[in-house]
């Protein structure tokens, strides 16, 4: 599978990122190189091999349902660029 500029545009849009034409050209090359590299894996026969989602041989990392103190409101809002009455304030978004 080869990537062209339209796919770079699409991925950039999904990631809400803007690039110059020059950068996009560079990404087309980089993306294709990455895909070629990963395509190497297709050479392996994975018939009868279970899908792996994690490289750690562990499962069920669970916690008990216990309430512990949350952060203070000041701490919560410490990194907020904009706030109002204890809320994070952002430019208006309506779905």
């Amino acid at each position: 599978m080869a990537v062209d500029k339209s796919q770079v545009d699409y991925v950039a849009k999904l990631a809400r990122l803007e690039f110059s034409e020059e950068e996009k050209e560079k990404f087309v090359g980089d993306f294709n190189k990455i895909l070629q590299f990963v395509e190497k894996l297709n050479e392996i026969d994975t018939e009868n091999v279970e899908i792996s989602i994690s490289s750690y041989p562990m499962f069920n990392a669970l916690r008990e349902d216990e309430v512990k103190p949350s952060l203070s409101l000041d701490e919560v809002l410490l990194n907020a660029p904009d706030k109002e009455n204890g809320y994070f304030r952002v430019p208006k978004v309506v779905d």
Partner: protein
Amino acid sequence: MDFEAVIGLEIHAELSTKSKIFCSCTTEFGKDANTHCCPVCLGLPGALPVLNKSVVDFAIKAGLALNCKINKDTYMARKNYFYPDAPKNYQITQHETPLCSEGYIEIETDEGVKRIGIQRIHIEEDAGKALHEGENSLIDFNRSGVPLIEIVTNPDMRSPKEARMFFEKLRSILLYTEVSDCKMQEGSLRCDANVSVRPKGSTEFGVKTEIKNMNSFKALEKALEYEIERQINAIKKGERIVQETRRWDEARGQTIVMRSKEEAHDYRYFPEPDMVYLKLDDEWIEDIRKTMPELPDEKKKRYIEEFGLPEYDANIITTSKELAAFFEEAVNIGGNPKTISNWIMGEVLRILNDREMEITDVKFTAKDLVKLISLVEKGTISNTIAKKVFVDMFETGKDPEKIVEEKGLVQITDEAAIREIVNKVLDENPQSVTDFKNGKTKAVGFIVGQVMKASKGKANPQMVNKLVEEELLKR
């Protein structure tokens, strides 16, 4: 051409855990904004989510109650999208491997029992809340990370009424199992619908729209009715239905376009790298099965078989877990199940509906109701008086025996006293006596009514009937 609707529902229910799904912040509703937050549910870099075991337990319980297959090997997935109420810019949910699948619920339609398929139930985190104000939106992350199950049905419903019945039954099951408190006004139970129409008899699906923002059973039914009619009218005019998301506007009574599928999201799901596999064994599942309470359908069957209740009554009483508990408590105290059921179906539900209250809000107890019934059975008071005592009992929570005693409501069973009232009424209503003699039997009812009124409802009705006839014949 006749059309039929095809409806599928997606329901989100907040689980009854104390803490959030991936962190130990409380799930308590309605506190000051952003006071139930930590690095995990704020999505701060480096914070690691750890799954709450109770979330898995509740989801398994919901799955068992909805007759699902429980999938032993599952993992969480990352769903990518940008919206300010999702602090990580992704939601941790399940995608390829839902915890439960292939279940069903049975509903009672006019055509008999109908099975509605449950496609899947998966666990996921809730998002925060955005308030839109002027030029800005204000974000509260208290709800961020509250555990949810998403229940997806098959497109098995054919009318808004069926959709409503399914949703009501589902809510009842979730309440019975205590998986969720299902408070729709607090958003802990939410419903979206996918709906399309097609010519009756066709097996192909039409183009569907998704409807959001239906915050009550009534809204679900009304929104679907509106949307189905809109689609049918559009098709009749030769227009094409567009796949889109629409919002129910309660005030306008319309569904309004939110976004069309062309701008639909590409969520780029992938296995959540911050979490490990979830592996269930039979023991875990069986341990949860052991905690399963009697569900509405089983209870209903038992009420019909054991207590001889009519199916309709059994259905209504078992819809609410609390109402069923009240009924059973009264039966255990020693009341006649059918009489108790009649009272619940009549006076109790009438006053609860009138006052928009639940059985758990009332001041009187099951014991009071049984006492009231026994006052009628012993002949101390008439049924009519009992209804008045009931209202009093409802308002004050007083013992019905006390109310009867204090208000002097004891039934008059003294034959001489009743005969005296009867004769007085007959004297005052010569026209009715003449009517009776001319064969108008309706006059009897009028006289009986007047006698009851004169005795302030306290005269024994059977005796009044008998004595009115006797005295009329004498005249």
